[in-house]
């Protein structure tokens, strides 16, 4: 009896907690592990939401971000957009209930978890006790103003006030009060916004920092990227547990209808094939399948050849737009951007875009500037854990004229931006900061880097050649005097005669070199050529102009750089 007592006693202590309470205790899981990171996470969630809202509504985004330090390490965070606004009745749930949102379907968007902005609200009330204020205008001449908090025990919104005033226009504004620390530098909010501006050049962003200084990130592209469409699940991205639930919940009367209606890329023929392979009748009612039936079906799906998922669900930024973004924010002298065609990993479509910016305003010293993006959002933390970083490290940058020690970060005036878009970005962890290593993804990143770097190499070689040609000009004049003196001493010719002869010869030769130089000089305009998208044929042609050749003997015991004639 005493034994039973133990289990009884222990039983009493069991209880259930809400998801809000769980994340309140585990706020590090959502990016609030310290004051610095928490502040940037709040800004990020709100900006992501704003950009997503504008894009969904096909509105060119205009975002206002402001930070005020209202107490020691306490910040008011204000983000306002010109998006569609939010219907009054949805406002409390969207901002003050975890796991509520618009983002649970298979569609490329910045948020994937449906948890970001309400997590920021949760963090605000936990760290400062303050409520969050929401302003929303949907264009009906009214502005709805809510003061909200989350009831942690129930994960339900608590409305502290709800006011409506007259106002024109459209958009959403959020005011959070959070504990945080504002820093400058590599992992700062300023840097995050700058990086956002590069990959979202169709957005106008204004940022007012805690000192009141205003930064404008202008719009340089006047069209939104193509719209991302929702798609249905592709059978190759399916897990058996999901299949079971779909079979149970479907309204389809038989298996063929089930497959053709619930999945992407499954036509009647494919559906029949799956049924045949699994030994099930095509007319079976999905809800009646046993567990073993389901397992057979699942195995059959993996064996049947199914067309790759359609890719109109992807909304890449595009080479031209990325060029403009890089140009305005980093001002390199040369830019090369590759937007790869869509590809597929585990049944999910994705696409890689790589931009390289070289020279210009970029730091000549130190490691290159790597910026990683997923669905247009810069990834700020966990760089070393990210497969994008790994792909950059493993690339042979030396081959492209960039210094690199083995397996370490290249150095030089280079910015590398790498963007993955996908309906389902495979992050390694909850922080949404590092991309997991899928072979298909790594391969695409490598191809894009190679393609972009080849173009850059041509530019760098050309630049080196121009420098050389200019140096050459001087060299002959520098060395001829001593040669003439020596010849006058060795031979019986008068010095003046030798000098005149030599100068005539040099002038003649120089003319030939001038021509070379002019040709090489064309390279000076390459920057513009690339930026305006001229074909690379004309460039690889001019690369073949070799100006002088040097051959080295093997095994030299003396230096011996002359050309060898047998």
């Amino acid at each position, binding site marked *: 009896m005493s034994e039973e007592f133990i289990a009884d006693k222990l039983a009493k202590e069991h209880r259930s907690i809400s998801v809000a309470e769980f994340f309140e205790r585990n706020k590090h899981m959502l990016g609030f592990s310290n004051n610095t990171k928490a502040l940037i996470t709040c800004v990020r969630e709100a900006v992501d939401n704003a950009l997503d809202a504008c894009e969904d509504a096909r509105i060119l985004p205009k975002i206002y971000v402001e930070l005020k330090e209202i107490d020691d390490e306490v910040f008011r965070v204000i983000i306002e957009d010109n998006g569609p606004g939010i219907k009054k009745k949805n406002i409390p749930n969207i901002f003050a209930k975890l796991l509520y949102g618009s983002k649970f379907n298979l569609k490329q968007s910045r948020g994937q978890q449906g948890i970001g902005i309400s997590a920021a609200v949760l963090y605000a009330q936990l760290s400062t006790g303050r409520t969050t204020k929401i302003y929303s205008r949907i264009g009906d001449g009214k502005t709805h103003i809510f003061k909200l908090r989350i009831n942690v025990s129930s994960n339900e919104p608590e409305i502290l006030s709800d006011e409506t005033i007259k106002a024109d226009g459209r958009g959403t504004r959020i005011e959070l009060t959070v504990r945080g620390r504002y820093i400058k530098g590599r992992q700062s909010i300023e840097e995050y916004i700058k990086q956002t501006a590069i990959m979202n050049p169709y957005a106008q962003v204004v940022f007012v920092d805690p000192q009141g200084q205003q930064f404008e990130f202008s719009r340089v592209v006047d069209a939104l990227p193509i719209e991302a469409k929702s798609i249905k699940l592709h059978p190759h991205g399916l897990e058996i547990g999901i299949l079971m639930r779909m079979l149970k919940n479907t309204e389809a009367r038989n298996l063929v209808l089930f497959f053709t209606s619930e999945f992407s890329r499954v036509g009647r023929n494919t559906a029949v094939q799956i049924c045949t392979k699994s030994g099930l009748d095509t007319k079976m009612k999905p809800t009646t399948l046993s567990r073993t039936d389901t397992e057979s079906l699942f195995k059959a799906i993996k064996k049947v050849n199914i067309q790759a998922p359609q890719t109109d669900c992807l909304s890449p930024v595009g080479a031209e737009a990325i060029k403009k973004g890089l140009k305005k924010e980093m001002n390199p002298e040369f830019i090369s951007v590759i937007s790869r065609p869509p590809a597929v990993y585990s049944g999910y479509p994705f696409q890689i875009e790589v931009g390289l910016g070289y020279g210009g305003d970029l730091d000549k010293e130190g490691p290159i500037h790597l910026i990683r993006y997923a669905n247009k959002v810069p990834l700020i933390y966990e760089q070393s854990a990210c497969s994008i970083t790994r792909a950059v490290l493993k690339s042979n940058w030396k081959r492209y004229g960039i210094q690199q020690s083995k397996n370490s970060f290249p150095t030089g005036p280079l910015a590398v931006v790498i963007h993955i878009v996908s309906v389902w970005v495979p992050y390694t962890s909850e922080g949404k900061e590092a991309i997991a290593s899928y072979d298909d993804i790594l391969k695409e990143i490598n191809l894009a880097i190679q393609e972009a770097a080849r173009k850059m190499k041509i530019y760098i070689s050309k630049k080196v050649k121009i420098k*050389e040609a200019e*140096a*050459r000009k001087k*060299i*002959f004049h*520098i*060395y*001829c*005097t*001593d*040669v003439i*003196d*020596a*010849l006058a*001493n*060795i*031979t*019986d*010719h008068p010095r003046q005669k*030798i000098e005149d*002869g*030599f100068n*005539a*010869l040099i002038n*003649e*030769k120089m003319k030939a070199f001038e021509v070379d130089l002019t040709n090489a000089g064309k390279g000076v305009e390459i920057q513009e050529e690339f930026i305006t998208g001229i074909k690379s044929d004309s460039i690889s042609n001019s690369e073949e102009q070799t*100006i*002088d050749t*040097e051959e080295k*003997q*093997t*095994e*030299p*015991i*003396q*230096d*011996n*750089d*002359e*050309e*060898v*004639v*047998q």
Partner: protein
Amino acid sequence: MKFETDEFVADRIKKLGEKVTTDIFSSTSPTFNLPVRAASNIHYNKDDGLLYLGTNRSTRDFFNFAHTRKFMQTLLVASKCKELIENQKTASIRELYYELKHNIPGTKENTFEGQDESDPLIEDLETMTDSLREQLHLKADSSGILFGKLIIEDMGDRIDCSKLGKSGLAIPSIVDDYKFLQCDADYVLVVETKAMVDRLVEEKFHLENNAILVGLGGQAARGARRLIKLLNERLKLPVYVFTDGDPWGYYIYSVVKTGSMNLAYESKRLATPNCRFLGMTMDDVDNFSLHKVTEHLKDVDKKRINQLLSYEWFKKPHWVKELKAMLSKGIRIEQQALASKSLEFVAKEYLPQKIAKKDFID
């Protein structure tokens, strides 16, 4: 100083200049054409046992960006050598460097930034004018010492090399002008270390055995090599070489005998192809019970042994056997290890015995 060759060499230098001025006056790129001095262009001639440069040639072109500076430097060296010959002066190669070093107007550059820039050009000039460095009135670093029953006339002085106590004659860089007034020696013994020469002098080996001792002090300097050649050629003295029993000693022997890779174009004038190797050998270790005083081969020794094995002039059965024995035993033996028997041993037993038995390697 004046040499018989002076006129010939000065003329060769002038021809070199004429070639360049002709290029200039005929509006073609001024160039030199010169033999390649790389390992790939060095050949061993089995017939006369010497190393020679092959026929590969390269071109140095003033209007090839990568050659311009060196082109200028080559002419500066040639011009200075012509001056030395005309003024009957000689200069060390370091002096040459300093004589030619000056700022190039309008730049921060000097004509030469270091002696490593001028030294190879001297060798180029030697090959292009087909003359010895010494004939260009240039001196290499000297080292080497001589004892023995030999009377030399040097710059008018009569030097009896058997009357130099334990001090000895320092061998200069230029010896072509030596006159051999009298020689009562039977052979020349070339010795790797000066300390071993000291030992032999202390034991009066040179006097008792009618030997001319030439101490090298490591790798043979040009002066010493030329002197050995002259003693062999003019006085018909046989030459025996006595080095450490290791790849470094063996290579010293091969340089005296066959010529060096660096100066392959001068083998004919510097090498003594009929000299013989006396020791130390791996057989010596067994025959004279020297096992306890051998040294272990280091990695660098082994590497050098394998290099020697790859040279054609070491591909003679006895040398291959010797080098492979070294590798398989993992040891080397020094001259001075003979002291472990007794200090006199080398002079009283080892050398007389080896020479009597004609226990030489070719």
